[in-house]
C-alpha cells in the first residue's frame, strides 16, 4: 500500500483536529455554566477564595488566550490538568481508555458474530418466516434505547436470575497484572481462568447492550449485500457448474457480500465510542464514555477538550481503516 497515501491521511488529520478543537471550545464558551461555581457547589467561600480558585484553574484569562495556550500545549502533548482529578488529563483519559476499548471490541465481536450468519441466512431464505422475523428483530434492535434495554437485561439476569453481576468490570478477589490492560486478554495470558470467567461475566450484559444496535445494522447490510451478490452472473455460473449450494454461498458469495459489512462495521465502530457513554453509565463500567459525560456536566474543560480530540482522531483513523479494508477486499478499487 502506498506510503504516500498514508502520510496524506495523517496530514488531513491536522485541519480536522484543529477544526474540532475550535468548535468544541466555542461551544463550551457559549454554554452557560461556570466550572468554578459548580466545583464550589454549596460551600461558603469569600470572593477572594473564589478568585484564587479561578486563577488556579486558569479561567481568569481571556478566552482567545486560553484557546491558543491550550493549542500550543496540546501540540507538545500537554493537555493540561483535569480540574477535578488534579492530574494530567492525558493520564486520566489513558487510565479509563482500556475499559472502553475492551467493551467496544467485545461489542463489535458480538455484533459481527450475530449479524453475519443471520444476515446470510435471511438473504438465502429470502421472504421466508425466518427472514421476516430476523428483519423485524433487527428493527427492534436499532430502535430500543440502550439505557432501557440495558436496565431490562440487568433486572432479568442480575436481579431476578442472579446469573450475572449488576455493575463494574471485575470482582474484587481477582487481581491480574496488566499486560495489554484488557482484562479478558490479560487473565488468559497470565493463566488465570477464574479471573477470565469473572471478567467475562461482567462484560456480557454491557457488551450485548452496546453491540445490539450494531448487530441490527450489520445484519441488514449483510442481508442486502448478500441478496445483491446472489443475483450476480458469476453466482449463476457457479451454480450452473454444479457446485453445491453451500460451496457457492460459502466460497464465492460470502467474501464479496461481506465487503459492505466490514466497511460499515469499521465506520460504526466509531459510534460504539459514543454509545458507550450510556451503557457505561447504566452498568457502572469504568470507561472513557462515562468519564466524558461526567466531565461535561461539571464543565471540566481540559478533559472535555482532550477527549474530543481523541474521539476525532479515532474517527479519522477508523475511516482510514475502512478505506483500506475496502481496497484489500475489493482489489479492483484503489485507495
Amino acid at each position: 500500500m502506498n506510503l504516500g497515501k498514508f502520510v496524506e491521511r495523517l496530514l488531513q488529520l491536522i485541519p480536522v483536529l484543529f477544526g474540532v478543537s475550535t468548535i468544541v471550545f466555542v461551544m463550551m464558551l457559549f454554554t452557560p455554566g461556570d466550572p468554578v461555581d459548580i466545583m464550589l457547589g454549596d460551600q461558603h467561600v469569600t470572593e477572594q477564595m473564589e478568585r484564587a480558585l479561578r486563577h488556579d484553574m486558569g479561567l481568569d484569562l481571556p478566552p482567545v488566550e486560553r484557546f491558543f495556550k491550550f493549542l500550543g500545549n496540546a501540540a507538545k502533548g500537554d493537555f493540561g490538568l483535569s480540574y477535578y482529578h488534579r492530574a494530567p488529563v492525558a493520564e486520566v483519559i489513558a487510565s479509563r481508555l482500556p475499559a472502553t476499548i475492551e467493551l467496544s471490541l467485545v461489542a463489535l465481536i458480538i455484533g459481527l458474530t450475530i449479524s453475519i450468519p443471520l444476515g446470510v441466512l435471511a438473504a438465502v431464505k429470502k421472504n421466508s418466516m425466518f427472514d421476516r422475523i430476523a428483519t423485524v428483530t433487527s428493527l427492534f434492535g436499532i430502535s430500543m434505547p440502550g439505557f432501557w434495554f440495558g436496565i431490562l437485561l440487568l433486572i432479568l439476569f442480575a436481579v431476578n436470575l442472579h446469573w450475572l453481576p449488576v455493575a463494574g468490570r471485575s470482582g474484587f478477589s481477582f487481581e491480574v497484572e496488566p499486560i495489554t490492560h484488557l482484562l479478558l486478554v490479560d487473565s488468559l495470558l497470565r493463566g488465570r481462568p477464574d479471573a477470565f470467567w469473572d471478567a467475562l461475566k461482567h462484560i456480557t450484559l454491557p457488551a450485548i447492550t452496546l453491540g445490539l444496535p450494531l448487530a441490527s445494522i450489520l445484519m441488514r447490510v449483510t442481508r442486502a449485500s448478500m441478496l445483491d451478490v446472489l443475483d450476480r452472473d458469476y453466482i449463476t455460473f457457479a451454480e450452473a457448474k454444479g457446485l453445491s449450494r453451500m460451496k457457492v454461498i460459502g466460497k464465492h458469495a460470502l467474501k464479496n457480500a461481506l465487503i459492505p459489512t466490514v466497511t460499515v462495521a469499521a465506520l460504526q465502530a466509531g459510534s460504539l465510542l459514543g454509545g458507550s457513554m450510556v451503557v457505561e453509565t447504566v452498568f457502572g463500567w469504568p470507561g472513557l464514555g462515562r468519564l466524558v459525560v461526567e466531565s461535561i456536566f461539571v464543565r471540566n474543560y481540559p478533559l472535555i477538550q482532550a477527549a474530543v480530540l481523541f474521539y476525532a482522531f479515532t474517527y479519522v483513523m477508523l475511516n482510514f481503516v475502512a478505506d483500506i479494508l475496502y481496497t484489500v477486499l475489493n482489489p479492483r478499487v484503489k485507495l
Partner: protein
Amino acid sequence: MTFKKTLIMLGVAGAMALPTLAFSQELRIGFSADALVLDPANHRNRATETIIRNMYDGLVTRDSGMTVLPELAESWTQIDATTYEFKLRAGVTFHDGSPLTSEDIKFTFDRLTKENAMGGQTSPRQSLLGPLKEVQIVDDLTVRLILETPWPILPAMLPFQEVVSKSFVESVGTDGMTDQVNGTGPFKLVEWRKGDSVIMERYDGYYGGAAGIEPVGNACVQRVIFKVIPENASRVAALLAGDVHIIDNLPPHMVKQVEANPDTRVMAVNGTRSTYVALNNQSGPFADIRVRQAFAHALDRQLIVDKILGGNATLINGILSPDAFGKNQNLPVLEFDLDKAKALLAEAGYPDGISVTLDVTGSDKETGEAIAAVLSKAGIQVSVVVGESSMLSTRFRTKGEPIDGEMYLTSWGNGSMDPVGIFEPTHRTADRGNSSGYANAAVDALLDAAGVETDRAKRAALYSEAEALAAADTPFLYLWVAQDLYGVSNRLSGWSPIPDSRINLHDACLN
C-alpha cells in the same frame, strides 16, 4: 489409625474455621460517585471525602447527632478568641506504623492553608479553614491553631479535614498522594480501581477511634469496598441482588421496592439540604410581596411531601433546617389557605389568576409538576420547564445582576449544620447562592455580626432574628428538608446514616 483420626479432626476444625476466613467479612457499598483523588487536601467533593474518611481520621469528627467530638485529638480548649489548643492522643500510628505527632498536624494544616504548599498548587480546601493563620507546635502531642480573626465555627469546620503523615507526603509527593494512602483511619487502602471501586481492608493497628463513638477498637469487618454505580436503577438493582450491602442516594420513588424486598430495608436521616422555590424579587410578578405570600398560602407542601417524597421530609418556614444551630423555632407559618391566596392575588392586581414559569432540573421534574398541580387550585397557571442545573444556576445565581426567570426550584446544602454555610450564601445581598435577588440591609447586618460573634448564645440569637426578618419578607417559598435515604442489607448492623452524608464504616458489621 490415630494419624487418620488426627487428619479428620484437623479437617473438621479447618472446615469450621473456614467461614471466618471467607470474604463474608467483605462489606460492599454501592456508591453513586467515584473518589476524584485519595488526597484529603486535594479535592472539594463530598463523595471523595466520604470515601477518604474511612482511611484518614481527623483531629475531630461528628457523631450521628452531628456533635463535634475529639478523634485524633484527645481534647481541646479555646484559649482566647483566636487561639485553640488541641491535645493529641498518644499511641496513634499511621498505616505504615509510624507514630502520629504534632509535626504531622502542623504539616497537614500548613499544606491546606499556605499558598502553593501542595507541590506548587494551593489546596482547594483552603477556604474551608477560613482565617486559620498558623499552627504552633507546643510539644510532641500538643498544638495550637491560631486564627487571623475570631471564627466561632472553627470546631464545626474541622471535621472536614483529615490528618496526613508528614514523612509520607514528603516521600511520595503530591502526585503520589493522589492514589497512595497512609492514614490513621480504621481501614487502609488495598487498591483503587479508578472509575470502578475503592478496595480497603482493616488496619489492625488502629488506635480505636473517637472515644465518644462506641464501640471503640478495630473495625468490625475485614474488607470494605466502595463500588461505583452512578445510575440510580443499577445501584438499587445491585442492593436487591445482594451484590452490595449499603447504597446511598436512594430515590424516593424506589423506597417501596427496597422495603418490599425481604433482605433489604431503608434507612433515613434528616438531611442538611434545604429545598425551596426561589422567587425573582427583583422584577416581574414576585417583586410584590403580596404575590409571594399568595403563592406561599396556595402551596400545600405537606401534600407534596406525602405524595412525592413518601413522607420523608420535614417542612421548614425559614432557610435553616430544624436541627441547625440558631434555628428560630417560632417562625410564622404561611398556612395552606386557598381563599387567602386568592384574596392576596386579587389585591396585588391578579383577580383572575396569574401565569408563571417554574424552572427545574431534570431530577426535580416530578416535584415541580406536583407544585404546579397544587398551585393550579388557586387559579395559578405554572408551566414547568426543565433545564440543566449549571445553566439554571447561571440564570438565577447572578450575584446581584438581573435574574432571567421567575421561579426556580432548588436547594442548598449545609454540611456543617452551621448557619453561615447556608444563610449567607442564599440570603445575603448579591451573594453567590442568592437565587432570588433578595436584598435586605438589615438581614445583611445581622449576618455580618453573627459571623464574628464568639458568644454562642448571642450568635444563635442573631441568626434567629435574621431568620425571622427574612421569613417576613418571604423571598423564597421555603419548602422542606428532605431526608437522606439509604438502602441497606438486613445483614448489616452497627451502622446508621449521618446528616453530613459521611459513610463511616468503623463500627459496621456484617452478619
